[in-house]
């Protein structure tokens, strides 16, 4: 897992993504904000969504209350 470690802690890149999602943001915008390749951002967004830390808002993504507690 790239974002959520086996012990449940988050990687630094995952925290950077969560911080970038205070308002609804598209994957392409996030990639340029955090300086990660788009393919990696897409993969991380999928993982963070499955973990309930972010949610989809149309074509964009937004941090959840659960996600905020992990920062």
């Amino acid at each position, binding site marked *: 897992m790239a974002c959520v470690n086996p012990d449940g802690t988050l990687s630094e890149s995952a925290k950077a993504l969560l911080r970038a999602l205070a308002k609804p943001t598209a994957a392409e915008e996030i990639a340029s904000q955090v300086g990660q390749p788009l393919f990696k951002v897409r*993969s991380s967004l999928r993982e963070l969504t499955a973990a309930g830390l972010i949610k989809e808002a149309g074509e964009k993504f937004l941090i959840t209350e659960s996600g905020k507690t992990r920062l």
Partner: protein
Amino acid sequence: MENTMVNEAKAAEGLPRIGSPAPQFEAVTTHGTLRLSDFKGSWLILFSHPADFTPVCTTEFIAFAQIHGKLREMNCELLGLSIDSVYSHIAWARNIEEKLGQKITFPIIADLNKEVATKYGMLMPGESKTETSRCVFVIDDKQVIRAMIYYPLSTGRNMDEIVRLLQSLQTVDKHKVATPANWRPGDKVIVPPPITQETAEERVREKGLECKDWYFCKKDLK
């Protein structure tokens, strides 16, 4: 004998073909779980190597890492693959950086169940049943297979040719031309031959072209 030929023909039917959509997959990599669709919008060079911690593969990995920046400037990502575990990939990438001073910046698929290797025909049973050959798939930004290169276990690939191939494909797309043998950026390109007698006659009168005959014309790209 006949059954073997039928089986081989059936197996080949599902293999990637130039101009066909690239087979989709989801795989564990050194950069997390990736899907082919994660790369949509950028070109991708998907390549396989026989095994981690082997000398020819190590020289290739260093060489791939050295062209990674140039490929990214061309909107192209790199994705490696072998039938090794993700832990082996991580250890090998760290070893290359520690012993040989080259950071491996691209993800590597840990294809232990051979799922991606089988989809892409990376295993050559006549050569090895457990190691993938040195395959290269150039996949465009719409996820169509645009070129394939297959090298045997014994022979390391030429990075200049991989970069040149990508440069050619992107030039072909942008300018609707073809590229001649040994073409390099800046060289003249081939104008696609006319397909009617009328356009053949127009072609030889067209200005700005270097024509040897109606079917064989080159031009400079502005």
